Every structure is written in C-alpha cells, then in structure tokens.
C-alpha cells in the first residue's frame, strides 16, 4: 500500500528529515514514534503531498504522491495535529465540505457523512456546531472529516493531543475498527503507551532519521534485557557506587543511570533481583525504593539514542 523510500527534507541548514524509509500494508497500523521535533510531522506532510521532499519518494499502490490535483491523494485521509474544523459549520456541514473536496456529491456524500459520523459516535450531533463540542468530540470529528471519502490510507498526526483518557480510548476503538476494515494507518505520536497499545509496527524516529523499525516485540528484543529493576538510593550514595562491579553480579545484563535512579537490566528478575539488592547492602548503600518492570519502548529509545523519549 504505502511505500516510503529514503525521504530527505531540509529547511535552510537544518535537516528536518534525513533518510526515512518504511512501509504500511492494508490492515496495518504503523506508528511513527519520536520526541517532539524528531521529524514526524514533516514526514507526514510529505506523505500526503503538503511538502515536497528534497529527495526520496512516496508511493501508494505504486503511484507516486504528488501535490495539487494528484489523483492518488483521493486514497489518503489526513488527520492533522490541529483541530482543522470550521467551528461555525455544523458537524455535518464540515463533513459535506470535505467530502465534496474529494469529489463526493448527492446521495453518496450524504451516506458517507452519516457513516463517518456514526463511526466516531457523533451521529446524534450532526446538526450541532463544533464550538459546542468537548475537546474529545472535536478530535473525533477531526477524524471523521478524514474518513468521509473512505480513504485507503489514513495519516494521523498526533490525533489524541489534549484528549481525556475516555475519548482517547474511543478514538483507539475507531482506529482498530478501521484496521479491521483493511485500512492502512500511519500514526505519529510521542506517547509510547499509544504506540504500544495500537501499532502493529513501530518506526522510531530521532533527529529526522529512522533509529529502528520493527514490531513491539522485535524492538523489545533489542534491549539487552527483557526486564529491569529501577533502584533509588539515598542522595549521593549511588554516585559513590562502583556500578561496573554491579555488572558482574550473576544475571545482570545491563546497568545504567536514569535521572537519579539506577536501572539494572535482567531476564529473570525473580532470581537476579535479590542478588542485586544484596550487592547494594554489601556496598553499604541503603536502597530506599525499588521497582521492577518489563522492558518498554522508553527503554528501547533510551538504549538506542541514549536519551529519554520525553527529553
């Protein structure tokens, strides 16, 4: 469906995107995960023809996406990061306009508008203006506007910004329904929880380049350990510790500082964690708090870039 090959885009001396490649198949949700300013939105803008890449190519079904009247744009639905709605037009009026821009008219347009509103749960608010909607309802209408022409590929640029958890779950349900219908979705976010829950494959982007691209499980396997414990010690105590020696404890796969804590990677926390705590006791360092957990995308990003996702 979607093939993105070696996209580059510079603004002056700054490289916003420097070699992004990935693909999305029908019925697949591909997440573009990265911190703010990583180049996700520029990539999405190039996918839908808003910005022309300096080099590289975007194709949908083998046809290159151009700008202007490019027919292949009819196969794309864009959900911008902003609430791109006419606040003074009723919800139905917004859908009718955006449907008409994609060539829909008459009964087809009306049917598609009803279907899109029902999908996002706003069928009973069709005659109301978005200015009377909650933030979550506006986000859902924002999504419906991109669906009205029944695109094959949906590009979602941080579509849950500023949304309460309940509305976010409703949007996720909508997106999962679209996946079941065979749509290809590209979902940009800087929330790892969203990517973990929703995406079949995740493309991690940092500084305009693809750092990693795989399924969630595939990315987690790249971690030196599948689990970790995070240990918080008394102030200053951790700095005095010889962490290199901690790496010699049996079962310890990795040791890293993260903020004021020490993160120790391991595959079998049940066997290794007691030995790690004993090592701290042996060093005369009081452990104030410790927390165990499975590896996350945050850990993956940290391992790959040396930075936290929300830096």
């Amino acid at each position: 469906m979607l093939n993105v090959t070696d996209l580059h885009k510079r603004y002056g001396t700054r490289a916003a995107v420097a070699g992004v490649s990935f693909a999305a198949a029908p019925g697949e949700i591909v997440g573009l995960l990265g911190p703010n300013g990583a180049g996700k939105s520029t990539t999405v803008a190039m996918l839908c023809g808003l910005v022309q890449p300096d080099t590289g190519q975007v194709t949908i079904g083998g046809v290159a996406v151009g700008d202007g009247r490019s027919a292949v744009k009819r196969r794309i639905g864009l959900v911008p990061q902003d609430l791109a709605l006419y606040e003074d037009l009723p919800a139905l009026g917004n859908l009718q306009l955006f449907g008409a821009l994609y060539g829909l008219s008459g009964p087809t347009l009306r049917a598609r508008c009803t279907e899109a509103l029902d999908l996002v749960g706003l069928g009973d608010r069709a005659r109301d203006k978005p200015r009377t909607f909650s933030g979550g309802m506006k986000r859902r209408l924002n999504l419906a506007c991109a669906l009205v022409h029944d695109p094959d590929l949906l590009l979602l640029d941080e579509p849950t910004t500023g949304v309460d958890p309940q509305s976010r779950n409703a949007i996720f349900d909508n997106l999962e329904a679209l996946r079941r219908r065979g749509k290809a979705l590209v979902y940009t976010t800087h929330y790892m929880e969203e990517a973990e829950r929703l995406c079949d494959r995740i493309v991690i982007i940092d500084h305009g380049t693809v750092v990693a691209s795989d399924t969630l499980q595939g990315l987690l396997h790249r971690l030196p350990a599948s689990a970790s414990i995070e240990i918080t010690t008394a102030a200053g105590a951790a700095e005095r510790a010889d962490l290199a020696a901690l790496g010699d404890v049996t079962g310890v796969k990795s040791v890293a500082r993260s903020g004021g804590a020490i993160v120790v990677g391991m595959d079998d926390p049940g066997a290794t964690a007691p030995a790690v705590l004993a090592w701290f006791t042996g060093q005369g360092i009081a452990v104030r708090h410790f927390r165990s957990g499975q590896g996350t995308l945050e850990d993956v990003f940290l391992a790959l870039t040396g930075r936290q996702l929300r830096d």
Partner: protein
Amino acid sequence: MHAVLALIRNDLRLYFSSRRALLMNILAPILIAAFFGSLFDSDAGKGPMRIPVAVVDLDHSEVSTRVLAAMQSDSAFDIQELDEAAAGALVKHGKVRASVVIPQGFGERMIAAIFDPARKPAIAVHYDPSQSMTLAVVNGLLVQHVLEGLAQSALNGGAGAQLLSGARARLADAGTMNEERRRRLLALVDDAQRARAAAPTGAAAPAPVRLQLPFTTNDEAVTSGPDAHYNSYAHAFAGMGVQFILFMGIDLGVGLLLARRLGLWKRLRAAPLSRAALIGARMASGALIALILLLVIYAAAMALFGVRIEGSVAGFAAVAVAFALLTASFGLLIAALGRTPEATRGLAVFATLLLVMLGGAWVPSFLFPEWLQQVSRFVPSRWAVDGFDAMTWRGLGLDAALAPVAVMLGFAAAFALLALWRFDWEE
C-alpha cells in the same frame, strides 16, 4: 469544478451566517453614508447654507447703515448686529464664521479716500481659522455691498454733497491743469451742486437711484439631466461602500491566516485540488461577497435615500465587478504578506484607512492639494469612488467607466500576482 463550487459555497455560507460581519459590512456603511450624505444635503428644501456673520457698526453713518442693510438682505448671510466684544466672543466659540467691524468715521473716510488713498479706512474681519474657506466668500460679498452702499449714498444721500465739495476743492488746487479745462470741470461740478440743491424733497422726491452690479449670474448645477438633482448621498454611499467592503477584504485575508493557524489550510491542501483551484475559489468567493455587499448597500441607498444610477447601468455593473475583484485580490495579498492574524489585521486596517482617505471616500479628492490629487491617482480606491460617482449622480455613460474599470482590474491583477509570488504554500 465541483470542489471549487463547494469551497465558494462554504465561504459564502460562513460569511453570511456571521452577524458581526453583516453588521460591520452592511449596516455600518449605510448608517455612516446616511450621516455624511445628510451633512452635504442641500437639496432637501432648506436652500443653500447661510453663513453666520456678526457685524459691528461703530460708524452709524449713512454708508455703513446701507452696507449693513445690504448684508442683512443677502441670502448668503445670516447677520447678527452686535457690539465688538460679543461679536469677538461668538467667533471665538465658533458660533459665527466671522465678524465684520465697520470702524468709526468709515463713511466719511471712504469718500475722502477717493481723493486721498492714504486716508483709506480699514474694515476688520475676524474669522474662525477652522472655517478659513468662508473668509474669501465673506470678503467678496463685503466688497460688493460696500461699493453698492457707497454708490447709493453718493447718488442719493449726503455723501454726494461731500463728494462734490471734495471734487471742487481738488480741481481748484490742481495747479498743473490746463486753465480752460479746469474752468469747464468746475462749471460741471457747480451745475451738479445746483441741481442737488434744487431737487424736490419729501413725497415729491424722485425714486432713489441704485447702482448695482452691471451683470447677474445664472447658477445651474451640472447633473445628469435637466430634471435630475444632485444627491449628496450618492457620493457618501460610494465612499463608505468602498471603505467597508475593503474591510471585508481584510477579513478575507485574515481568515486565510486563521485557517493556516487552525490547520484547515493543511486539510484543504491535502485534498486533490490544484493551487489555482484553492486560490481561485477564495478569490471568487471574496469577489462574490464584495459584489453582494455592494448591491445590498446600493439597494439601501436607492430605497432609502433616492440614489439612482443616472448613468450607464452596464458601466455601474462593470465598476462593481472590477471593485469586487480588487477587494478579493487585496484580501489575498494580505494573506500572502501577513504573518499572524492579529498583527496583520491592525496593519491592514491602517493601510485600508489610508487607501480610502486618499481615495476621496471621506473628503472629496478635489479638496486635496494638487500634489495629493496627483498621488491619489495611484490609489485604486480613488478610481472606485470616481467610477461609482460617474455612474450614479454624474450620470455619465459607459465610456466614463472604462478607465476606472481598467485601472482597478490592473491593480487586482498586480495584487493577485504579488500574492501568488509571496504565498507560502508549505508554511
């Protein structure tokens, strides 16, 4: 085409559903034009405006009395006879345009000044500097009335004897004059004095002789036809219509900037539409809105204030369409050059006010200094106002619309090209 029509329909729907827009762009120009029109309305049975003037007669001579009476009977003046202090106070407070002070001994000195210019008396005219244009009118009419008063007094009153005595003394003292000529002139003066002394008085006296201007003027307003009257509302509606529709053009441009900020522009651009379709739809909807506003404003002017298209209807339509396109391209230019909606609106309002001021929408451009009149030829709103004036109260034909239409279309094309050149498509 379907998509373009949808965009145009959407813009019209959004604009005309906004009460604020309708209030600003339809009601405001009608109310302000009605106000300005009424200020200059001289055709409402009130006749020409009379100039309020205070007169102070310190002389009370036969001549000054005649001058005062003549001024009081002049329909151009609204005369109040006051003492000097009261007259000065009225000028100072702007209650009268000027005060005319006829000095003591005015009549006598004026006769004497005929033979001795050094004794010429001075009439003091104190005027309101904010109304300096009326000073020339007051002075002109004053000269007329003083000369008429002097002539009447000389021919019918005591001033005649003084004039003859003065003339006789002057002839007697004229040392270089030929003796025969002096003798004949003195005999002429003596005959005149004898005739005055022998003239019957009282009821038997002949009708007084009046010396008046040896010509009259027939004043005729040049309008569109013999039965057509000048309608001051026509110019006011042209000016205010142009001003407020240009304000609508600002809304158009700022609306585009807001659409960018809200992400709407991004969504529109993601649709399978060419740049020409996107911009063309915006231009078309802007021009249509401007045209509709213009027609509604003129419909009100016709229904409520008797404004008529006395000239070419086709010419009026052409001027209206050209101005509508000019407004739309002006809006587009604002969107192309502007950065933030807030800052752009302030600057654009300032620029528009300059345009309409220089265009003669507030004050007719013929009142401008010559250099400013030349400058205003480069201002498109001047051509719009002139075009509407020509087709309404001036009653000119289609040919008079051609130049305004051509200039406005030229400006519209220039604005549109500049806007397309500077437009930031990728944001």
